[in-house]
């Protein structure tokens, strides 16, 4: 008999959610057969059976989350005894102790790498039986501080408060698709049916409803907040004449039967230019700015319920048709949720194109720890002479950069080089 554990999909994954179980208890499974869909903060992933046998027990029901490496199911021969209950996180912790530090038993380490936390945060966590891996640190370098643990405990309390709910009330909650957070406002010893109905009525009165955050939405919210609060953003806008770009796309299209996207052409120019502006092809780190020889280009791709940023590796050594093909491939797979988690990591610069939605210019938010992101606006045809003969195509480029890593002139120079190359790609040769 073998346990099936929550897989670690990518370096930053700490927990995953079961979207659905594709097999039920008692079903026979073959090695490699998909048994569940797992939703992480970034992607949806098909979990394959590690061994063949019978799915004896599902430990983690659909819709629930578990930390990486925790047992979520058991596969074995029919009739085999499944170990009793999963070990709850609190069960492995010693009882809170009022004694001096020396008397406290060390907490069993979790299988993932230990969380970065202050001693005081660790003490509170230990006293309250909280696993630090579940707490998000807001201190420098993501360090967990006492406040973070206290905050976590508060959230935990507010959700456990909701657990005190009558079964009849639970049905109404279910019917109206209310999230647990909504019920926080319902006070009292036990939430009863009438409370929930009253709440629903009140909510309907103002004609609003709450769309619960998906795990991707939560992940986006977290990363955006991190980026926006930690990085001093500066965004530079520049209008450029884009004839050269269209010309280039036309030429590239002649070399292949596949469609060449504008994004691929811009990705090509950007990735050729970035090595000459190394502070923008970089990660901002504690002790310095890590600059990269190669360009691993992140591309913001809208998917049905959010946004993912797949990374095109070594973009600087790929041709326009190669880039076009790869971009089309990852975009398609992003939409179907079949990206490999590692395809979402390691970007050194990011491009976000909203031109096709008619946006002129915008202020893109940097993907940490990167130092820059380029926003691409729409192309506009403008008459420049009264007889209407001369036409110009212009577009707006918006470069956001991390002002800790560089200054305005540095960003402006990159934007200037890019503008020249877009007007006349031959500039790349000079």
């Amino acid at each position, binding site marked *: 008999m073998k346990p099936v554990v929550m897989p670690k999909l990518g370096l930053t994954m700490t927990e995953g959610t079961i979207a659905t179980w594709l097999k039920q208890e008692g079903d026979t499974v073959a090695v490699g057969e998909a048994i569940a869909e797992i939703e992480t903060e970034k992607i949806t992933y098909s979990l394959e059976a590690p061994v063949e046998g019978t799915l004896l027990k599902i430990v983690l029901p659909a819709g629930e989350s578990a930390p990486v490496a925790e047992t979520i199911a058991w596969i074995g021969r029919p009739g085999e005894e499944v170990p009793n209950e999963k070990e709850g996180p609190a069960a492995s912790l010693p009882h809170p102790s009022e004694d001096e530090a020396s008397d406290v038993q060390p907490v069993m380490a979790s299988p993932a790498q230990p969380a970065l936390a202050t001693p005081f*945060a660790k*003490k509170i966590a230990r006293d309250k039986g909280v696993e630090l891996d579940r707490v998000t640190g807001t201190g420098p370098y993501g360090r967990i501080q006492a406040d973070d643990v206290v905050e976590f405990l508060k959230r935990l309390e507010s959700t456990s408060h909701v657990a005190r709910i009558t079964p009849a009330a639970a049905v109404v909650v279910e019917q109206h698709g209310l999230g647990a957070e909504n019920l926080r406002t319902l006070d009292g010893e036990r939430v009863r049916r009438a409370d929930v109905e009253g709440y629903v009525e009140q909510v309907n009165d103002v004609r609003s409803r709450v769309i619960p955050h998906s795990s991707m939405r939560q992940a986006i919210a977290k990363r955006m907040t991190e980026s926006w609060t930690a990085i001093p953003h500066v965004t530079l806008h520049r209008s450029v004449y884009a004839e050269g770009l269209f010309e280039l796309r036309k030429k590239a299209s002649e070399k292949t039967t596949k469609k060449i996207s504008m994004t691929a052409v811009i990705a090509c120019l950007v990735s050729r230019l970035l090595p000459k502006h190394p502070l923008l092809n970089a990660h901002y780190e504690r002790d310095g700015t890590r600059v990269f020889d190669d360009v691993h280009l992140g591309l913001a791709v809208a998917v049905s319920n959010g946004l993912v940023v797949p990374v095109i590796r070594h973009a600087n050594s790929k041709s326009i048709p190669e880039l076009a093909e790869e971009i089309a491939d990852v975009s398609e797979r992003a939409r179907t949720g079949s990206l490999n988690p590692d395809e979402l990591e390691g970007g050194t610069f990011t491009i976000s194109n909203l031109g096709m939605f008619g946006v002129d210019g915008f202020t893109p938010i940097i993907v940490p720890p990167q130092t820059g992101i380029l926003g691409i606006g729409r192309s506009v045809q403008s008459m420049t002479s009264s007889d209407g003969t001369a036409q110009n195509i212009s577009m707006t480029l918006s470069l956001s950069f991390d002002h800790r890593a560089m200054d305005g002139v540095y960003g402006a120079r990159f934007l200037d080089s890019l503008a020249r190359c877009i007007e006349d790609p031959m500039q790349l040769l000079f």
Partner: protein
Amino acid sequence: MREVTFAEATLEAMREEMARDSRVFIMGEDIASQGGIFGQFKGLADQFGLERVRDTPISETAIVGAGIGAALGGLIPVIDMHFADFLGVAMDEVLNQMSKIRYMFGGQANLPLVLRAPDGVTRSGAAQHSQSLEAIFMHIPGTKIVAPSNAEDAKGLLKAAIRDPNPVIYFEHKDLFRRKGQVPDGEHITPIGKARVTREGDSLTVVSYSRMFTEVEAACQQLGDEVEGKVELIDLRTIVPMDVETILASVRKTHRLLIVHEAVKRGGVGAEISAVVAEKAVEYLDAPIVRIGAKPYPIPFSPPLEREIVPQVDEIISAIRGLLNARI
């Protein structure tokens, strides 16, 4: 309460103790003839005579050695080093005699010696006249060390040192001598070994002493509401024996610690305090301990370079802000 300068406060302590106990006398360079280079002995010779206010030759070895002998012989000497830097000349007397004799002779004699050592940076004293050396002497068992930051404690600690049966090194910061402060009327003694919490707060403990304590106060003044109720300020007052309990109680409450001293940061009193807190209260820390001290270079004569080496208010402000806002 009366407002007097730090120098006058020490002078009051001397007068009161010399009047109270005829065994108390003072010796050092230019004390009787000049009244001390910072005016801290002014008028003593007129009041008490040259027998009890003695000018000495320029030999720190002889001054400290004679002080030790006088103390063993039953007198209560207060001896002046002119500049703390010159303690180096009398190092054997301090290290092997003054600090050891009571122990080595089983406590048969008291050693009520007060070693006054004007220290710290002031007016471009340069490398040999600007040092803060308390950490060197803190390392030597057998001697108490005090370092007042204001007139009140300057008087109170000097009187306590004179009455203590053990040798006490009294570090008085040269830049503090002319500063005025409130001193209580009548008999006033500051107990040795007791720190003072001058400002209460719940988010950051700042420990400092001597002149740098006044800089920390200035930083808090500038920060105003930002630190109100958050910063707990401790004036250490005594380096040895250190009031560890007051520091630990505060850190257990605030969970953050900043230590500020003018002496070189490397191997300084701040290192000792950090180590004690790490040993006894590490699990209460919610941020790294931050120490501010001088950079490890000889103090330059040049005023701009001097400011570069010695901690300034700005550095203290940014450390306080960083710790309060979880950015350190």
